């Protein structure tokens, strides 16, 4: 799970709860991580959010796994009370025409709301609309490399008609996030579960990798080999039998032929 958060005071409760540690190698943004989570503090605004999201996407060490991205932070809102958490189900930009509609797969208790990302702090609170300064840019970049269901924006209302954004203090921001932390982390975990469901099977990838090294397969043969191994896993054929078969073959061509012959009887629905 990857968190993109604009401010340190928004990030603090997540860092503390997940026991993330700061990455000390030089990076353009502060990055905190443990074995399963990464959090980047982007700074305020569209450019910062886009750059930080791009940085996270590019620096992933688990490129084969599908990953989820969650933008967490505070927002103004034209209708919702302060301290209300909501998921953005339509994200617009105050200076552009493109809208994003993050597909909502997870049943959560969060409110759902439209959200407009502004270039400057917003003081006109339109009814039914939330305001932030990062979400659209975050979504725009993240949706280029991850499926949209796994990219979500979760905000806690910090200001509205009754409470101006100028009165917000960092400690209040931390409290707002803290108040919803269990639900935020549950939501993040559910996103992770969805991501795992569509991630490639790592054991299959490993087996394909090992098989490729046995013979000098051409590119098209590698494509066939990978496919055959993937099918063999589908039919629960024994890994050692596959490797043994490839090793006993005298050439890449023969290996593919032998694999085909081995798998063929299984290719029928039970």
């Amino acid at each position, binding site marked *: 799970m990857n968190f993109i958060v604009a401010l340190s005071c928004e990030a603090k409760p997540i860092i503390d709860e997940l026991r993330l540690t700061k990455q000390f190698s030089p990076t353009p943004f502060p990055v905190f991580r443990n074995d399963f989570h990464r959090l980047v503090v982007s700074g305020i605004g569209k450019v910062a959010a886009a750059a930080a999201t791009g940085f996270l996407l590019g620096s992933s060490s688990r490129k084969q796994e599908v990953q989820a991205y969650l933008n967490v932070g505070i927002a103004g809102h034209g209708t919702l009370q302060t301290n209300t958490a909501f998921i953005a*189900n*339509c994200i617009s930009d105050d200076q552009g025409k493109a*809208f994003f*509609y993050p*597909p*909502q*797969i*997870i*049943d959560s208790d969060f409110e*759902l*709301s*439209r959200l407009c990302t502004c270039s400057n702090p917003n003081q006109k609170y339109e009814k039914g609309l939330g305001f932030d300064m990062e979400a659209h840019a975050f979504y725009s970049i993240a*949706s*280029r490399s*991850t*499926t*949209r*269901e*796994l990219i979500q924006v979760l905000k806690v209302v910090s200001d509205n008609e009754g409470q101006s954004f100028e009165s917000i203090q960092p400690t209040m921001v931390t409290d707002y996030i803290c108040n919803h932390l269990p639900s935020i982390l549950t939501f993040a975990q559910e996103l992770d579960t*969805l991501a795992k*469901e*569509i991630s*490639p*099977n790592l054991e299959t990838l490993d087996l394909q990798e090992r098989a490729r090294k046995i013979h000098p397969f051409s590119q098209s043969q590698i494509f066939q080999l990978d496919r055959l191994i*993937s*099918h063999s*896993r*589908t*039919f629960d054929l024994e890994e050692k039998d596959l490797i043994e078969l490839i090793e006993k073959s005298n050439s890449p061509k023969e290996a593919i032929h032998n694999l085909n012959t081995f798998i*063929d009887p299984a*290719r*029928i*629905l*039970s």
Partner: protein
Amino acid sequence: MIKNIYYEQKVENHDRTQEFFSRFPQAAKISCNHFKEVFNPSGQNFRLQKKNPSLILASQNGKKVHPIPAKYGVGGISNFYFSHLFNCLYDCRYCFLQGMFPSAHYVLFINYEEFWDDIRSKADEVSNSPSWFFSGYDCDSLALESTTGFVDFFLPKFSKLPQAFLELRTKSVNTRVLKNREPLPNVIVAFSFTPEEISRQLEHGVPSVSARIKAMHQLATLGWYVGIRIDPVIDCQEFESRYALLFHQLFDKLPEDSLHSVSLGAFRMPHGFFKKMDKLYPQENLFAGKLSKNKNSVSYEPGIETKRLDSCRSMLLEYISPEKLFTCEMSQGK
């Protein structure tokens, strides 16, 4: 339970939209300019969305009635299909919708009246012969009836246009809307089947084969014409005995004169659709079967396809006359 309703701004004040809003008061309502803004973007995952699809209310402003692929009909000369709804309540692994649509959200086109105008125009154009209208190409005709009211709207219309035939294709047992009215001689309720063992593996969320057979028999008894769609035919272990049992169950108690037609179609898919489906479900046994690519299409290896179709054909002809049997050579399995 619908949790999100997207709607095109232009249909916001339509009676049907307002009816949906009041029927799902808890759902978040999100306006959009055009349904394609929500439905079409790249980078969506059909498999994940299928867990919790949203509803999109839209108006179909383009062409509403289309000619069907050649050799697909069930006896008519002028054959058309129309889609008031994109996507299906069920999750059949062989269904081409997974490969065709970028999203699993339901898109409901609520301008039924305009669909009807186009259907009537097409029927008038070919008034010298019966015209056929197929409604279950991009959805199940009955499964979401309690939400859409589609059949409830169209049946009275078709009752006044006897030269036009309507096929409702379904795997649903939600047939109350039909049971509550007099049968129409120009409406065929066509049920799709695979053997129970295949259905359990591939037809997720679909009523059991026995429940569908029961629903079909009930409608037939009430006087509705029914159709049987063995499409797609799926290769499997014990193929002959499983299909023989299915056919026996289907025809055993079915009044012969209520059977309009039986159609048969092999599992066949445009290559692009297949690639997408295979990627969505890399562990799916069906997609790792003995399939081959021929031109732009993926289907069972020719020998298997011919053998299985021939086998089904000869078994079916033990129960029905050849005039009632149609082979859909271009079928795509839905």
